[in-house]
Structure formats: C-alpha cells, structure tokens
C-alpha cells in the first residue's frame, strides 16, 4: 500500500518488534511442513544404510513386482529389488547432487557476475551475451545434447545444472556489483589504494551474497528435478546405482505390470521438491524486509 500504510501517522515514535527469522520460518504452517519434509529426506539419506533392511541392488527375480508389505514397505521393482532401500539410497544421490551442483553453480555464477560487474565494459558485454546464450537453451535439450557428447554420468547432470542455473546467479551478482561499484565506500577504498581483488572479496561479495543464497536455496527443488529427470531419461546415474529418476524409468517401462515402482519413484521426488519449495518460500518471506513485522495480506 502506498501512503495509506498499515502503520499510521505517529508511528515515527513506535518501533514494531518482529519475531526472529527462525521463529518466523517455523511458525508458518507451510514453513514448518517444508522443514519437516526436508528433514525426512536428509535423515533418509544419512541413515539409509541403517534403516533399509534390504540391499538396494540385490536382484531377486522371483520377487518382482511385489506389493508393499512389512518386508518391502514400497514393494519391489521389475528385478525384485527392494524399492524402499532404493528410494533411501537414491536420496543420497539426489541430495548430494543438489547441494554440490548448487554450490558449484553459485561459485561459478557469482564469480562470473563479479567479473562482469566490476570489469571493463567490453568484458561485461561479452559475458552478458554468454549468460543470455546459456540461458536460452531449453534445459532438457541441453541435457540431451551434452550427454550425446559425454555419455550419461553424474558429472553430466552436474554440468547441466551449472549451465542452466549459473547464468541467473551471474546476472544477479553482476547487477548488484554494478550498483555497489560506485558506492562511496568502494570509492574510498580505491582511493586508499585497495586492489580490485580485495575490494571485490572483502567489500562487494559479502554485501551481495545474502539474496543470492536465498535464490539459490529456492532453486534446489529445480536441481532435484533436473537430476531426477535426467536419470529418468537414462542420461544420469548409470545402473545399478539407484536414483529416483531411474526407479521411475524402470517402473515406467513396466507401468502396466505394476504401479508400485512408479509410485515409489515419484513419491520421494514429490516429497523433496515440495519440502524444499515450502521451506524456501518461508525462508524468503522471513527475510523479506517488506513483510517482517508488518501485517500479512
């Protein structure tokens, strides 16, 4: 709202007390739910070896397509492998790829953005063109193309994620760097003889990293989706390593025989993407200065 602000005239003397960020995140029902779902996935990944009764890659053709039961909580797939174990171990792939690839994307993207924002004009223009070009590739096309060249692998998945996500981070970092570049404190540092590297690392980087981290955390569900999608197409992890996408792939081939593999493969993807998305939204709301302490619409 414009000047009919929720705080009235006379609020100059009044300071609203907002709740701390953590309370705000967990206080919102969706935020709490998101945190819970993420915790579920993380715990599943960490304790996969302990929780899973069966081994995820042991083949038992006699037991193919079993329905869920006490022994096999999610049933078995087309090769008789325990789906519950495969899902649990698949979460290791999903989470490690998500976190690793996101980290690398941030690293490369922010570095490129800092250079583009701080460096000479021609470098900026050139880098911008590269960023825009990379962002123009439809992600799946990019994945298919890359894997044609390199063959399917986890590294290919990470590379696709980086190419798909880093340009956005680079653009954000670039914009923010450019606005800070002419700030007074930077000029002051320059006049004191500080070199570009020092200025960038000590002064610019800490100021821009906050919003970037929030955006990156909101991209995690996208990365999970990319990994699962690529594995579904057979472009990611190679069998017999369980990935949720490959569970889905196997299940899809036999979808008319049994619904359980498909259900088992899709469920963790849904849980993880929902969880990270809810959590990311709550995170963003908690740190949004417009909303902290004010009334919710």
């Amino acid at each position, binding site marked *: 709202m414009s000047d009919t602000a929720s705080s009235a005239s006379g609020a100059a003397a009044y300071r609203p007390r907002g709740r701390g960020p953590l309370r705000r995140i967990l206080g919102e029902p969706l935020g709490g739910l998101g945190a819970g779902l993420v915790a579920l996935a993380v715990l599943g990944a960490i304790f996969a070896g302990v929780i899973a009764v069966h081994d995820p890659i042991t083949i038992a053709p006699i037991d193919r397509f079993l329905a869920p039961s006490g022994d096999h909580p999610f049933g078995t797939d087309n090769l008789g492998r325990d789906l519950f174990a495969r899902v649990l171990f698949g979460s290791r792939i999903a989470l490690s790829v998500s976190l690793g690839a996101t980290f690398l994307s941030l690293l490369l993207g922010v570095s490129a953005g800092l250079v583009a924002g701080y460096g000479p004009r021609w470098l900026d223009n050139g880098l911008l063109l590269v960023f825009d070009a990379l962002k123009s590739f*439809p992600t799946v096309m990019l994945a*298919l193309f890359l894997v044609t060249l390199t063959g399917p692998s986890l590294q290919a998945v990470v590379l696709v994620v980086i190419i798909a996500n880093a340009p956005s981070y680079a653009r954000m970092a670039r914009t923010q760097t450019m606005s800070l570049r002419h700030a007074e404190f930077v000029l002051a540092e320059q006049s004191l003889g500080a070199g570009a590297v020092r200025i960038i690392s000590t002064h610019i980087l800490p100021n821009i990293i906050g919003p970037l981290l929030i955006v990156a955390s909101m991209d995690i569900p996208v990365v999970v989706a990319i990994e699962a999608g690529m594995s579904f197409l057979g472009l990611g992890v190679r069998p017999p390593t369980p990935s949720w996408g490959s569970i889905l792939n196997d299940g899809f081939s036999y979808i008319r025989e049994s619904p359980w593999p498909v259900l088992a493969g899709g469920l963790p993807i849904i849980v993880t993407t929902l969880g990270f998305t809810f959590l990311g939204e709550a995170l963003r709301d908690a740190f949004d200065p417009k909303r902290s302490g004010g009334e919710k619409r």
Partner: protein
Amino acid sequence: MLTYAVKRLGLALAVVGAVIAVVFVMIYVIPGDPAAVALGPRASPALVAELRQRMGLDRPLPIQIVRFYGSVLSGHLGNDILSNESVLTIILGLMPHTLRLILGAMSWSILLGIPLGCLSAMRPGSIFDRITAVLSVSVIAVPAFVIAIYALLIFSIGLHWFPAIGAGEDPMDELYHLVLPSLAIGLGWVGYIARMLRASILDVQGENHVRTARAFGLSERKIVFDYVLRIAILPTLTVLGIGIGQMLSSAVFAEIVFARPGIGKLVYDAIITRNYPIVTGTVLVTTAFFVLVNLIADLFIAWLDPRVRYSLQR
C-alpha cells in the same frame, strides 16, 4: 518504438550467434571424438577417419568455426545418419506436434490460471485464497514429468478416462489425446500464473490511482477488471513468453511418457541410435526458436503498455 524493435532484434541475433558458438565449443571442447561417438564403438578406425574428414574435423579450428556457422545459418544442419534426410526438414516436420502440446499447455494455464489468480486477489486471506496458494506452490514445485507419469498411471491406465499413447487421428481425437499431456505440462504454469497474477493485482491495488478510482465510487468489479487487471496482466504475459522455453523441456517428457510424435521423442530416439546430427540440429533449432519467442513477447509487451510505448517513442 521502431528503434527499440531494431535494437532488440539485433540483440536476439547476437544471442543466436553466441548460441551457435556455444554449441560449437561444446562439441569440440568436450573430450571424445564426435565422429567416433556418431558411429558407435564398433566402427572401424578407417570409417571413423572417413567420417572425420567428411565432417571436416581434420581442418584447422578457424576454418571449422566458419564452416559451422556457414552451414548452420544456411539451414544445412546435416543429414540423418540412418535415412539421410535433411535434419532441418525432419525437425520442421515434427515441430507442429510439439507446438500443439505447448499451445495446449498455455491454454490450460491461461484458462485456469487467470481466473484463479483474479478470484484469489479479490478475496485475499480467505479459505479459497489459502487453498489456491498452497496448491499453486505445490504444482509449481513438483516436476512436470512426475505429474505426467502419475497422470498417465491414474487417469489413463487406472481409470481409462484418457488415451495413453499417440496423438490421435482426426481433430476431435487429437484434442482428446492432447488433454492429459498438455495438462501435465501446463499444471505447474496454472499455479505460477495464478500466483503471479494475484500478487500483481494486490500490488496494483495498493497504488494511488486505484485509491482515486475508489474515491470516485467505482465498483470493485469495474476497478479490478478494467483498471487493475489491465496493468497487472502485463508481467503475467511476460512470464508466459519466457515460459514457452520451459514448456518445451516439459514437452519432451510428455512426448516420451505419452508416446507422442514430436521433437522430444525425435531427440530421445536419436540419442539411442547415436544420430548425432539430429541432436545437434534440434538443439540449435529449439534454442533459436526460444530466442525468437522471447523477442516477440518482449516487443508485444512493450507495445501493449502505453507508458513503455510512449517512452520508447521519444
């Protein structure tokens, strides 16, 4: 307005040029001999060498770059390894199927997303609004291909409400076959559009000119539909324009899951048969298509908004 259009066109062309360069770099930088990859592991060294020579891989780098640009820009994307048809012809022949899917997805997102967004904005904080908000976030979060597979499982195989395979024969049958796959792609966008529109409308409603409209006693309906929506819809249209590229990605999955003809299935099959020119050609065509759609969307939005149009004319 015209200078802006020309500038935008120039930028788009530069991006396409950069895209071609990126593809070239990826082909020749990533380790692995493209010719050997194309022919498969059982090809004899002599055959590989011959293909290398035919593909011009033995020429010096600058010449390769020039040849690459030359052939791409003149439409010679190579020939299908198996059938020896022109790649471009094959791709253009299958594009309409994929475009139909994307159009269907866009239709869903507009037909469902816009009303939901409007209704949510008119009753902020209500039960309807809250439920819509949670559902919107949820469908955005879940990947489209998972939605597609589950939709296939539940509505096709389970309930037999919709066909599971193919694109259909006559127009009515085609529409029938289109429902489930396009909904799978479009559902996430329904949520996105509903959310965006709701936020836009609420934002615009807080602006001073809406306060003026209220102060003159205009009805809430008139304010929302004639005064607010006109402005609030603009960012939503922008989003749709960009979304087409993403919908293309989702369309690939939908084509594979529902066994429909189209670009997605083409590329997927091409990988399995190592039909290398097809993959390269498709990447180039779809990316260029995406850049073109972005350009058109940008110009259209700029033209629609009188403020932008005016500032561009000065």
